């Protein structure tokens, strides 16, 4: 130690009567810096960003869904913040400095307040992540508009996690508590429907949970009380902060804040639970939006494009997929009229089916293809283009959506009514439709090739899988809502795609009447179209056997028949 002369041991000017705010500010800055540097928080931020990107990289930006995705992803950072603030608030206990800190003029309440305020830095980080994600999506031709309240929900969740971590540290001062709470809350969050019941539309009580997902339902049909929910979350943050502070001797500002926060919590929480008014009923909304789409249809050559409000920029993309299919068809085979009509049937709407269907939304007609509210992008673009093109091609070869799924007489030994689904597997027109869809673009072709390789040629890529939902047939309440074109047929189509498109188009034109006949088989198509090399191996008989039966997961038996 150096010799301490009287000159170096100078009296330090005292700040008598310091306001606690100054100490809170400085301590919060110190704690906040340490919090942002904690590996847990950094890992949480990285995982949140990765989640945002992973969940959306194969779909086109639809901002009124991406905002919820961003908030959902920030739950990971919220969990990390909970763990980090809990560990920081328990630091003095873990490291046995309680006695030392007890001799300081700064009371423990100030330290707790500083811990709560230190979360602000991570909340700002959450905002940055959400903002960066939004910018990334904005750069990719987005449609619709994000909900600002929804965007702010993510940072609010992070604040909630941070304050909960501090509150737990004060009331249950053990490092073992926070990890168990995180896993338990996460599991309960995803089981919220089990706890409180109710469908997506009736279960308003689920809004008392910190986060409510969209569950794949169209945002346009689902009124989300995001503003009230944000107020509810902010109030919950304040309540948790006061709970943490009430571990120390209560002060008037704390009690007043707690009272106000509880009041706002009750008001906002109650406002969320208000039942929808009739105009907000999903059926009514669907009818209104579909009618609006019908009024603003765009005509391009012989095709009518009807996009729902906000999705008009997608018409160009649809046209870019549909026109190459029509260009390869013989003039007489082009479906006229042809409408590409976007609707909500592409979203998971079992409850709509329970309610009797989407009201005035028209049933699919012979000349309509119905894309949904998703569009593939990057790795998902091929599937999307292929699915849309296949819908047009199926119409062209005479496949009818009416026959895809229909009631059937009870089968022998069956209880109740049955359903039957048709499949064009085994028919030449299936090969033609698949080839027409695959030749529209390189991505389409690549998708078909990959699917055949991945599935080993024994099952078929049904329309609408894997990601974007483009249903050719009515989805109804049955899990099988799309046609099965046959794995072997897909493999044959892949072979045809290796040849010059003009050559195959010429053969298709020449033999159209035969190829589009339901009675013409795949073998005959091979001969007519002259696939290069040996024919691909046949799949096992039971897969494309139209007379096989299966039990549906809803318990209703159904069977496959050949499409008429």
């Amino acid at each position, binding site marked *: 130690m150096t010799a301490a002369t009287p000159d170096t041991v100078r009296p330090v000017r005292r700040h008598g009567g310091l306001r606690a705010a100054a100490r809170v500010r400085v301590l919060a800055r110190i704690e906040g810096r340490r919090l942002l540097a904690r590996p847990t928080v950094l890992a949480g931020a990285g995982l949140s960003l990765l989640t945002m990107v992973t969940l959306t990289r194969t779909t086109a930006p639809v901002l009124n869904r991406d905002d919820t995705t961003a908030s959902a992803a920030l739950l990971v950072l919220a969990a990390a913040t909970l*763990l980090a603030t809990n560990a920081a608030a328990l630091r003095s206990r*873990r490291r046995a400095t309680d006695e030392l800190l007890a001799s300081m003029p700064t009371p423990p309440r100030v330290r707790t307040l500083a811990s709560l305020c230190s979360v602000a830095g991570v909340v700002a980080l959450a905002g940055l992540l959400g903002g960066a994600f939004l910018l990334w999506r904005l750069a990719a031709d987005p449609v619709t508009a994000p909900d600002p309240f929804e965007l702010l929900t993510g940072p609010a969740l992070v604040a909630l996690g941070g304050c909960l971590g501090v509150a737990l540290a004060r009331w249950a001062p*053990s*490092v073992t*508590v926070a990890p168990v709470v*995180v896993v338990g809350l996460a*599991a309960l969050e995803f089981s919220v429907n*089990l706890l409180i019941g109710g469908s997506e539309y009736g279960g308003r009580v689920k809004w008392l949970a910190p986060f409510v997902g969209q569950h794949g339902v169209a945002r346009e049909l689902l009124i989300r009380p995001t503003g009230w929910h944000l107020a509810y979350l902010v109030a919950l943050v304040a309540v948790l902060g006061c709970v943490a502070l009430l571990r120390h001797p209560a002060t008037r500002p704390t009690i007043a804040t707690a009272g106000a926060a509880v009041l706002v919590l009750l008001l906002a929480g109650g406002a969320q639970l208000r039942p929808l008014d009739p105009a907000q009923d999903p059926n009514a909304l669907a009818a209104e939006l579909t009618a609006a789409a019908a009024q603003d249809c765009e005509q391009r050559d012989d095709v009518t494009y009807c996009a729902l409000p906000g999705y008009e920029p997608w018409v160009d993309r649809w046209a870019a997929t549909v026109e190459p299919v029509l260009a390869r068809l013989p003039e007489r085979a082009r479906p006229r009229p042809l409408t590409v009509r976007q609707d909500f049937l592409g979203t998971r709407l079992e409850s709509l089916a329970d309610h009797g269907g989407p009201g005035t939304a028209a049933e699919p007609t012979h000349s309509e293809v119905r894309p949904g509210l998703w569009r593939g992008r990057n790795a998902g673009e091929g599937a999307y283009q292929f699915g849309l093109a296949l819908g047009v091609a199926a119409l062209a070869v005479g496949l009818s959506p009416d026959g895809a799924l229909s009631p059937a007489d009870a089968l022998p030994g069956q209880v109740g009514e049955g359903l039957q689904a048709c499949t064009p597997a085994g028919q030449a027109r299936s090969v033609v439709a698949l080839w027409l869809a695959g030749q529209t673009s390189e991505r389409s072709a690549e998708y078909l090739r990959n699917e055949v390789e991945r599935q080993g040629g024994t099952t078929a890529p049904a329309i609408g899988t894997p990601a974007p939902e483009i249903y050719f047939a009515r989805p109804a309440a049955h899990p099988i809502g799309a046609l099965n074109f046959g794995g072997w047929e897909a493999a044959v189509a892949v072979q045809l795609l290796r040849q010059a498109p003009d050559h195959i188009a010429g053969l298709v034109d020449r033999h159209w009447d035969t190829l589009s006949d339901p009675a013409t088989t795949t073998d005959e198509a091979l001969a007519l179209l002259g696939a290069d090399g040996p024919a691909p191996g046949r799949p096992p008989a039971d897969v494309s056997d139209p007379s096989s039966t299966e039990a549906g997961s809803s318990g209703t038996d159904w069977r496959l028949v050949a499409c008429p």
Partner: protein
Amino acid sequence: MPVTPRQALRLVRPLAPAISWAPIAPAGGLALLLVWLRAQDAYSGPEELIVALRAAAILLAAAAAFALDDAAAGTTASTPSPLLLRRTVRVALVALPTTALWAGALWLAARKPLPEPSSLPVALLSLELATIIMITLALAAAVIRWGDSNSGGLAASSALLGLTVLTWLIPEGVRPWVYPGEPQWAAAHRWWAVALIASLAWFVWAGLDPRRRRRPQGPAGGGLGTGRRTRQTTGSGAPVQGPACREARRRAHFRP
């Protein structure tokens, strides 16, 4: 001196109060609640039930992560009882209530009528539980070894949660969370078994006495550093190291 079962049994009584039992009950209670909720739900199928069981497994692992935390690690490091033995006894003690809770979760899940009994693969799900717990304990052992003897549980349980999120984000073909009937079901569980063995090996390695693995270093020409064991003695001629010293330590430790 070889480790004996008797030695392990003797450690049960002193180690039992030194373990953090606190998180196991709430974690177990939550785990049972989650599985029960799914089992009660008429609309949940086998996949949802498996998800609930996996969440239960992660809960139990997060609680078991604290089994190795030892505030007195610095003091017990020089005792004759090997670190690995003490850790094994700790893990065995924690395994008892964990196994009972898991059995309870499986029983609750099995009460739900399923289309096929094979929809709930109890053995393979138990393999997943064992692997998750072993990975968590291996992480805790690593943190304790290279960091703080009292922070292994917190770090390991946090890492477990991060890993869970990460495994959910990786491409479907390599994701460990597969379901019965999927083509990768069998292959995925081969990887689960590999992960179990690897984490067990890591756990063992992290529990070995570091002196056993490090060769003494020093000046050449005798004594330490030549690689030959030399006899060091105190001033009175008694050996500093060697069988007599180890025997003395053993007697001191197990004095009745």
